């Protein structure tokens, strides 16, 4: 989360709530390694990434949910199937993303 810290601090100073999504597990080929983070604010800001763009919008929605409930959440993303609207990774791997509020 070090790389998104400037944004996290700026958003919090602006009075917004912030959630952080972190890649905590990677199986097979994935665009970003373990430890990659993306920060999301209650105002709708986004910084960093957890994949190559494949799951960021889905994670953004999950982060908004986490900010509403205050409950952290582990989400697993695998290969996207034939259904075009399904969220997944194009490169064939599986990632687990942990989404948590920065402060309670």
């Amino acid at each position, binding site marked *: 989360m070090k790389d998104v810290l400037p944004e996290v601090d700026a958003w919090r100073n602006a009075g917004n709530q912030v959630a952080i999504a972190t890649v905590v597990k990677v199986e097979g080929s994935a665009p970003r390694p373990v430890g990659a983070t993306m920060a999301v604010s209650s105002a709708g800001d986004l910084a960093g990434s957890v994949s190559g763009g494949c799951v960021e919008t889905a994670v953004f929605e999950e982060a908004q949910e986490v900010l509403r409930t205050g409950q952290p959440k582990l989400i697993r993303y695998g290969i996207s199937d034939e259904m075009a609207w399904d969220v997944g990774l194009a490169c064939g791997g599986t990632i687990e993303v942990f989404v948590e509020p920065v*402060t309670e």
Partner: protein
Amino acid sequence: MTAGPSSRAALQARLEEAFADRTPVAVATIVRGEPLGAKLLILPDETMGGLGNPALDSAVEADARALLDDEKSETRPYSLPGRDEPVEVFIEAYPPPPTLLIFGAVHVAQPLSHFAKALGFDVIISDARAKLANRERFPDADQIILAWPDETLEQVEVRPNTYVAILSHDPKFDEPALVGTLETRAAYIGAIGSRKTNEDRRRRLAEAGMSPEQVARLRAPIGLDIGAATPEEMAISILGEIIALRRGRTGGSLTHATGNIRGEREPAKAAR
């Protein structure tokens, strides 16, 4: 020594403090199982927070210290008595950032300093010429040392995660920088110059009593072979070589490579 449960805000503040003063720190978080999201901060002489179970805290603390040494982050399962499923704990290690020590505040050093900052390096510029080594030319360097190389090396601690680029192109700066750093545990020592310059340089280092092993550590001419021609391209070439070394690769096109695209962090053990 383990402190009791601390508020999330206190943990976050302590973490940011560790980042600011370059203290190695690891953060352990329960990502599967209860209490989900519980955190333990592992600092050099203490821990802060907790994962809801003292035995789990100590097991995770030991693993986190090992991961910090290896500069690796990972999720690990821990079995607890009385629980069917193991809890999974994500341990993220934040070793102190690597340092790029640049001798010679020349043109190439400017994009090199800038790009290295973007890659997360602490950048130190050393040059005795105030016309070259100044804040206007190096706005984002962490430190500008206006001194000769040997004086600089008295002020700077060269560690196994220090990378040295010698760019001065002038033997009276280069030689003391080379002699001074080849004796250290620096992860990387590269020097600019033509093939001819570098033949002479290697010969002079040998004559000055450096061992063949020490001279062999020198990467010169500095950088990867990408045909770099401008200062910016040379900066990319140098950083490419440094990244490849950090990740245990030699450089080259992925088209002609097999295996993992992404390299693992090579621990700086070779240099220790």
